[in-house]
């Protein structure tokens, strides 16, 4: 972050840095992979006990109500300290949705468990035939008395195999538009009739899974919002979700890895003007991302940003740019599967590079995002409708 920090912010940064230094378990520092929830939840709970697990949540639900600057300070210090990546579906997605659209009972039941790390959530939106075209989803839920009976098939469910709960979109009726008749529902994954199959990613880890529903019954009280109005629930927090998905957290982590690699004398990077330019490029692009994030986040706080769609593209493509540079610097060692080691610890060569392929796909592909920018922000005509 380039801007002047207030005295309070600078104090907060020192506090965070010191606490992370003292508290991140050594075996979780500078990991070259995203740990599974089982490996990471102790650390999650420790952060929670410190009060820093939910920077963007209201205090009343256990959050920090942190300013955007404080959030960036946390991201920067987490990256610098090599803190591990944590499960975010509860904190970044269903939590805020319940705060906005849930009943008091739902909030009371689910939010504390998210904060404390007692429940791991996963998202059940995508289906094999419904990716970018999410509204074409086919998982059906039949209303039967006080229950929904769910049949269907979700896919690309991040850490679905480790999750306790899923928030899902299911079709309860056919509407005039395809967005109508979709219901937002919370599913206890221990319910009978659910089968999970992990999916290995090209980076070699089981981060996703498929989830099959075979006559799975869910009480109607688990519906968020109205029956058939689930699309509105899922999209109620688009602006906030863009902030989460467009945050500089991953780019900062990639930049730290890049610097650790470049500092290794084996790669002769820092003295070569060719790489100096690349390293500066990586830093400058990250600063531009941080600046963009702060700008949108602060506008959002003041009542809604008018243009935040670009953040997801900027954040994800910045990460890929940084990792391309990392690969270049690694040179002949660039395809090594396992991390290298030096005095500073583990050096990631390929894990994040492969893992980051997903960034431009998930959360709405960058292609879908560009179409949104073109038509919604720039006001260009929707393709196909311009035909005379």
């Amino acid at each position, binding site marked *: 972050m380039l801007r002047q920090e207030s005295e309070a912010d600078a104090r907060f940064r020192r506090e965070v840095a010191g606490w992370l230094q003292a508290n991140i378990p050594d075996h979780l520092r500078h990991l070259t992979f995203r740990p599974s929830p089982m490996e990471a939840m102790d650390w999650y709970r420790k952060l929670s006990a410190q009060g820093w697990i939910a920077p963007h949540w209201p205090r009343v639900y256990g959050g920090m109500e942190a300013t955007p600057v404080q959030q960036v300070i946390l991201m920067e210090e987490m990256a610098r300290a090599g803190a591990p990546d944590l499960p975010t579906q509860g904190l970044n997605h269903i939590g805020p949705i319940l705060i906005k659209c849930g009943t008091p009972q739902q909030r009371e039941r689910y939010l504390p468990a998210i904060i404390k790390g007692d429940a791991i959530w996963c998202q059940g939106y995508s289906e094999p035939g419904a990716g970018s075209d999410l509204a074409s989803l086919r998982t059906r839920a039949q209303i039967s008395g006080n229950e929904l009976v769910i049949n269907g098939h979700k896919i690309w469910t991040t850490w679905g195999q480790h999750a306790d709960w899923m928030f899902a979109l299911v079709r309860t009726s056919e509407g005039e538009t395809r967005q109508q008749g979709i219901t937002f529902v919370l599913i206890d994954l221990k319910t009978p009739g659910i089968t999970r199959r992990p999916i290995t990613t090209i980076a070699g880890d089981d981060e996703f899974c498929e989830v099959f529903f075979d006559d799975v019954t869910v009480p109607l009280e688990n519906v968020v919002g109205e029956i058939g109005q689930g699309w509105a629930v899922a999209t109620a927090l688009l602006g906030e979700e863009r902030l989460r998905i467009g945050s500089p957290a991953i780019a900062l982590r990639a930049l730290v890895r890049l610097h650790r690699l470049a500092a290794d004398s084996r790669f002769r990077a820092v003295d070569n003007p060719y790489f100096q330019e690349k390293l500066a490029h990586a*830093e400058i692009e990250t600063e531009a991302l941080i600046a963009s994030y702060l700008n*949108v986040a602060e506008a959002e706080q003041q009542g809604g940003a008018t243009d935040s769609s670009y953040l997801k593209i900027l954040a994800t493509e910045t990460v890929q740019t940084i990792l391309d540079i990392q690969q270049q610097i690694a040179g002949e060692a660039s395809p090594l599967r396992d991390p290298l080691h030096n005095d500073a610890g583990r050096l990631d060569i390929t894990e994040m590079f492969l893992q980051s392929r997903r960034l431009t796909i998930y959360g709405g592909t960058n292609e879908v995002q560009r179409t949104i920018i073109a038509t919604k922000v720039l006001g260009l005509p929707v393709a196909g409708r311009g035909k005379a």
Partner: protein
Amino acid sequence: MNISDMTDEMRLIADSAFEFTTGSGGLARARAVRDKWPHFDKETWEQIADLGWLGVAVPEKSQGLGLGVRAVCTLLESVSRKLLPEPLVPALASAAFLADAGAAEARGLLADLMEGRKLVVMCAARASGSFPLRLANVPDCHSGATVLVAQGEGNQFDVRAIVPGGDGCAIRSAACVDGSTLSEIVVQQQEWSRAVRVAAGMQAQQAWEKACDMMLLGDSAYLVGLMDAALQMAIDYMKMRKQFNTPIGAFQALQHRAATAHIDVVASRALVVEACRAFDTPSRARAACAAKARASAAALRVTKECIQFHGAIGFADEHDIGLFLRRAMAVASRQGGEMAQKLRYGAL
């Protein structure tokens, strides 16, 4: 413009600057001055002085507006939307420098500058120690302009006000594609000795470096407004122009490239604004350098794309879109463009 901390005051500056630039001839004037020498209007310059703009970064106690670098950038982003040709950046920075570090002998010069009687431009490149001093690629050095030239380091740091053109200071100017100029100036020792010393010493050096960074930020902001306006012009064209019975803006390949250009604009703007917030911190130089590197690269990318979006008419000089590329080339390279700034960034 969606910058979160844009105050009403800044909005006022932005609006009135845009209005003034449009009212004083807008793109037609930017076009007309391309082949003029000097490539700006004395009358407009006097109006600019009357508006107080030249003192925007000068403290109120020195008769300025006391608004700081953020206002400088707001102003420049606005005027660049219609490619205001006047040399605001080096004049604004010179005023800020003189107010900040100027010796008593410089007071008259500052007043002349702010009231539009003299054009004063500071030359960012530091002259090497041996005479004659050679300064290359100095922008906006019009005939009759006073150039602030710096030499030395620390206690030996020394800034003189020199009017090139006489025997003691030769000037050779060459035109750029937008009509602005780059000059080579050669200062002889006797001219240097004769010239007024407007500032000296360690503190003056700090003020000088700060003013140089202000120029980097000012040029960056200018590039942001320029590329934003160019993209808007292209978007408007793409909505209207039809081929195959379809507005070309409905073609998805162009849409996605327009979206990419848009991201380039807003990310560059955010970085410039953030760099303004770093202006009074130790990150100042690094931030200014980053902003200039990114804005320079983005402005060239975006204006080239905008010409392509226009198709053949974009390649015709009679269409205004080409003015944006040509101006971007001139402003992007000042004090070093993308590559120079990145190599400098790494060394900071």
